[in-house]
């Protein structure tokens, strides 16, 4: 069975641009969460979606948004990119909206 898949694996953007990151959860998993991992730090919670509804939002500015589609895949959008947005963006899926998270390998975003 495929795990959590994220695309793209790497990308480079310029300050001020917009980026869309994509995540496909494990088959059967209905919850998707997004985390930001800055180099040398632990992952920080950005969003959680369950059954296409936002169930939680971390302490991130409104430039960050996300959505979940009927097939439970998800997109994370970041507008007006800043240098400080450079990080590994991780997607995690779970069966329900509690516990049992499985992480993807992430998208490495570099903002120049």
């Amino acid at each position, binding site marked *: 069975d495929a795990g*959590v898949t994220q695309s793209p694996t790497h990308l480079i953007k310029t300050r001020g641009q917009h980026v869309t990151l994509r995540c496909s959860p494990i088959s059967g998993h209905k919850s998707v969460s997004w985390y930001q991992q800055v180099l*040398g730090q632990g992952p920080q919670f950005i969003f959680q979606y369950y059954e296409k509804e936002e169930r*939680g939002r971390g302490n991130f500015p409104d430039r960050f948004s996300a959505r979940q589609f009927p097939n439970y895949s998800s997109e994370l959008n970041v507008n007006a990119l800043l240098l400080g947005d450079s990080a590994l963006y991780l997607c995690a899926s779970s069966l329900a909206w509690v516990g049992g*998270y499985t*992480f993807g390998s992430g998208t490495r975003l570099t903002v120049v």
Partner: protein
Amino acid sequence: QQQVKQSPQSLIVQKGGISIINCAYENTAFDYFPWYQQFPGKGPALLIAIRPDVSEKKEGRFTISFNKSAKQFSLHIMDSQPGDSATYFCAASRDQNSGNTPLVFGKGTRLSVIA
């Protein structure tokens, strides 16, 4: 305010030795405490997890010890191997019927096991 404090930041252990990583939490509402292992270029992978109704959980060479009164938990890796060299993260969350349950991570411990 950091809700989960992890130490040490880095750790070097001889092959066959015991690796010990400690975490302390502040929020008494936390009731799910997982440990994740992360290799370079990969996402975190769940290693072992514990709930506060037990004081210890063992899976193979990995053991979690949990002290609810001290709000501390630790990971012990017995017979450490070079393949265990990775970054380890403790985390905490509220689980099951408790509402929003994002994981709160520690800052990580980079473990190097040398031969």
